[in-house]
């Protein structure tokens, strides 16, 4: 029976639904102590004194340390992606020693018998700060007279990529559209706040942590702390969401390891939500200047992108790489003759930025999809029509874009046609016209986003060319147990994506075993000894393929053993339904029987080892390119500025689908997060650099009442770059939905003179945009 493509209910669910969970904060070790961190209340200041003696004297307190106390051994938090020759990577001590550069930076810590006593002791720590001027605005930060975040200045790096004759494309162009868009800073807000538990037996260390990247983390922590890699085990137990925010090597992880080493004890730290809002790296944060030149019929001549990307106070694991992930994506699905991408990374005295769902690609997609609507408006064309005139046609694949990527497959026409049909596009346009004619105070807007993205991060060779510090392969090992059951060990590290279920489906098909007979193990470097973890919609496209290839190797080993036992040539065997049959006979043996035969090892082929297992490391040959067409209908109250998403249709092409239930769930969640950016979410800082949205009461993660039901469907154009044909789905919804919703809002208000509403499009901002349009 074919498992791939089946809507299997998840194997993961029962435990999660009955509370038998292993969140890091649930775990205990004998003699375990609790850590609390004191964080800077100031965005930028010199530390002139930190006194922890008062804290050390309190009952239940084992230790209290300042940055100075650990300065010799704490190292510097790593940045693994130096994107340019001119990049400045400042020292990033896990605990600040002499200067703090964002509100929330750690300045001291306490270790006590329980979390209440640790928190009490923080209040007994005295810190004197000498305030320094904050650096908050990206353009002002680059002015020569700006206060400096770091000695070397506020520019982290500068990159420029040019393809084609950009100047020629803009010279005498019949249409030039020039726009500025702001990608506000976002807080990822995974539902599980971070937690770290570090334990030692004196020689070796075990770190349980709420992370997406146990394998990468182990390597980086060994480098930062000097703990030999082979004496460090990292475990990602149950992890409650990530969205990129747990793709990090954090100060808290380093410090908990050091505290465990110093005290010879197990120590645990659990983040509060308001602590996390300040301290977890944030997403987005770009100022985008975009210029587009086009012919009078709407065909694009050239595109020019000039970005300022907010790094925050330090460069963390892949901070500078995030805008670069968008560098080849602004041109999106469109054909053009010239393209220029310029980007400066800018330091500010705010929480560092880094990966957040989509990471560079939502920013790029937003800019191009917004400006395509502006082009349509300028030319009085339907926004779908202007896209049709520019996109790569299905018969043109593989297609090498102006930015130099080769898109292997896609069918933008099919996805768009299906989306228009499900959406009832013409009917909604008629209703819009009617409301406009009537002067209805509640106007209807229709927004489209025909997006693509690059996923399946990534071919190691391409990452090397981009100067990224690691490869993009993924590993899997598969073993047939003596009783015929199957253990799959994956290097991916799921935290909600359902890998246990999907990988079981892949293995069940490849080995011809029942879905129920497969178990999938992950997230522990002592068990899963090799991996690149989970981010960038890579797990299925890279890790799933590794599972498939490891299974195929096991199957071929089984074939040789079967041939030996059935006394025939391997090529004489047919494999179906988990059994090898000698062609044209009823002589057969099952893979389960072969597993037992390999275990017993009484009669193996010459030179064969006593095992029926194998592993595979898959390195993709290209990125994958999911795409789709999303359509949003919004109602905008022109009197109050209130926006309501009335209907939403998403037709995604993510290639071959392993489990449609899981794919649909990923799309739903992605759309919700993208709508969050469009309408609700922003990390707001005041003029002193204080984070005003430090709690979930201030930072608006959308609730069920804020969102509509989503209509989803798929077209299926398999990727040609991997044997599964899969393209990845984790980020698609988030990338597509933000511009679809904002395009819809602007579409509703264009007759009122509005051509943009800055995100998040709150009632106040919509109302102000209307006021501006009337002026």
């Amino acid at each position, binding site marked *: 029976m074919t498992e791939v493509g089946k809507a299997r*209910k*998840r194997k*993961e*669910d*029962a435990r*999660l*639904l*009955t*509370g*038998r*969970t292993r*969140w890091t*904060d*649930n775990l205990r070790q004998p003699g375990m102590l609790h850590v609390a961190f004191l964080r800077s209340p100031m965005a930028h200041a010199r530390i002139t004194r930190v006194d922890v003696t008062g804290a050390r004297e309190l009952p239940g307190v084992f230790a209290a340390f300042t940055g100075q106390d650990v300065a010799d051994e704490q190292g510097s938090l790593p940045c693994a992606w130096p994107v340019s020759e001119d990049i400045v990577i400042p020292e990033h001590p896990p605990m600040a020693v002499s200067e703090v550069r964002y509100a929330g930076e750690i300045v001291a810590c306490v270790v006590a018998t*329980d*979390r*209440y006593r640790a928190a009490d002791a923080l209040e007994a720590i005295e810190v004197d700060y000498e305030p320094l001027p904050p650096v908050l605005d990206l353009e002002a930060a680059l002015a020569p007279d700006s206060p400096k975040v770091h000695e070397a200045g506020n520019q982290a790096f500068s990159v420029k990529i040019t393809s084609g004759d950009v100047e020629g494309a803009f010279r005498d162009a019949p249409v030039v559209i020039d726009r500025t868009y702001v990608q506000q800073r976002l807080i990822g*807000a*995974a*539902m*599980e*706040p971070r937690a770290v538990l570090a334990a030692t037996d004196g020689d070796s260390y075990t770190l349980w942590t709420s992370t997406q990247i146990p394998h990468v983390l182990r390597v980086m922590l060994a480098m930062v702390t000097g703990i030999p890699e082979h004496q460090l085990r990292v475990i990602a137990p*149950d*992890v*409650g*969401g990530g*969205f990129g925010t747990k793709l990090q090597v954090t100060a808290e992880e380093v410090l908990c390891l050091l505290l465990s080493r110093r005290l010879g004890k197990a120590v645990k730290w659990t983040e*509060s*939500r*308001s602590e996390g809002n300040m301290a977890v790296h944030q997403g987005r944060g770009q100022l985008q200047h975009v210029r587009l030149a086009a012919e009078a019929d709407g065909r694009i001549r050239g595109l020019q992108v000039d970005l300022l990307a907010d790094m925050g106070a330090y460069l963390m694991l892949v901070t500078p790489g995030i805008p670069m992930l968008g560098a080849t994506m602004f041109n999106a699905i469109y054909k053009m003759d010239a393209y220029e991408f310029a980007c400066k990374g800018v330091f500010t005295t705010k929480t560092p930025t880094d990966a957040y769902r989509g990471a560079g690609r939502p920013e790029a997609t937003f800019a191009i999809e917004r400006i395509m609507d502006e082009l349509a408006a300028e030319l009085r064309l339907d926004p779908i029509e202007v896209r049709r005139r520019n996109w790569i046609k299905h018969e043109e694949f593989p297609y090498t874009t102006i930015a130099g990527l080769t898109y292997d497959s896609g069918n933008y026409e099919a996805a768009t046609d299906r989306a228009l049909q499900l959406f009832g596009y013409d009917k909604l346009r008629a209703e819009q016209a009617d409301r406009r004619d009537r002067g209805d105070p509640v106007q209807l807007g229709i927004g489209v986003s025909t997006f693509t993205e690059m996923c399946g991060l990534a071919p190691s060779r391409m990452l090397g060319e981009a100067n990224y510090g690691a490869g993009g392969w993924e590993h899997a090992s598969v073993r047939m147990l003596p009783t015929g059951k199957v253990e799959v060990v994956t290097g991916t590290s799921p*935290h*909600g*994506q*359902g890998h246990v279920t999907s990988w079981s489906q892949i293995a069940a098909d490849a080995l011809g075993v029942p879905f129920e007979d497969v178990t999938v193990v992950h997230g522990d470097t002592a068990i899963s000894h090799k991996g690149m973890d989970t981010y960038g919609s890579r797990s299925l496209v890279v890790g799933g393929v590794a599972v498939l290839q490891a299974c195929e190797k096991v199957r071929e080993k089984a074939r040789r053993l079967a041939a030996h036992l059935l006394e025939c040539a391997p090529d004489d065997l047919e494999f179906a339904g988990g059994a090898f049959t000698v062609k044209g006979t009823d002589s057969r043996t099952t893979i389960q029987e072969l597993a037992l035969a390999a275990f017993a090892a009484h009669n193996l082929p010459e030179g064969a080892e006593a095992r029926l297992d194998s592993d595979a490391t898959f390195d993709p040959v290209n990125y994958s390119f999911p795409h789709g067409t999303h359509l949003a209908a919004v109602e905008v109250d022109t009197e109050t500025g209130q926006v309501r998403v009335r209907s939403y249709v998403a037709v995604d092409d993510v290639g071959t689908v392993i489990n449609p*239930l*899981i794919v*649909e*769930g990923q799309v*739903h*969640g*992605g*759309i*919700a*997060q993208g709508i969050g950016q469009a309408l609700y979410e922003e990390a707001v800082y005041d003029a002193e650099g204080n984070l005003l949205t430090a*709690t*979930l*009461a201030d930072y608006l*993660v959308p*609730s*069920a*009442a804020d*969102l509509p*039901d*989503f209509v989803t469907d798929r077209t299926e154009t398999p990727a040609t770059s991997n044997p599964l044909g899969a393209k990845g789905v984790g980020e698609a*919804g988030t990338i597509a939905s933000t511009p679809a919703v904002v395009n819809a809002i602007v579409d509703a208000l264009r007759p009122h003179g509005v051509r943009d509403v800055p995100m998040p499009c709150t009632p106040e901002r919509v109302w102000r945009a209307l006021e501006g349009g009337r002026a």
Partner: protein
Amino acid sequence: MPRISVKVDGIAYEEDVEPRLLLVHLLRERLDKTGTPVGCDTSNCGACTVMLDGKTVKSCTMLAVQADGCEIVTIEGLAANGSMHPMQRAFHEEHALQCGYCTPGMVMAAIDLLRDTPDPSEEEIREGLDGNLCRCTGYCNIVRAVKRGAQEMGQAVKSS
């Protein structure tokens, strides 16, 4: 230190607690009821929702001493005789959880919602779950699960 008596998932406990101890920390750290997680510190996310004398409370927003004499049901106590509560089953059937961190609170809130509104419309479900945040699912499948759970619970009531 005040002594309190609580019944949690059918077991009676007597505990000496600091007056400031939060109910959720009593559950998680003293009674090992780690099935109930903590997602925020402002009562916004609802991950820590439990039933207290039959009504939902956010256990991070209540002191343990306030629960003295009360009967608490957590996600760990919902299944009866080894089989999941219809709402838990409905969440599984409809793929209404991904990372699962919000799930205990979401399931509790959904059951509470049906107490007053046994056959809720989509809008009533969405409004009713307004106090529980999920970052993974976009809520579509949670809404479907609550509808399914309502049907199954309704049928169970009718047939009993």
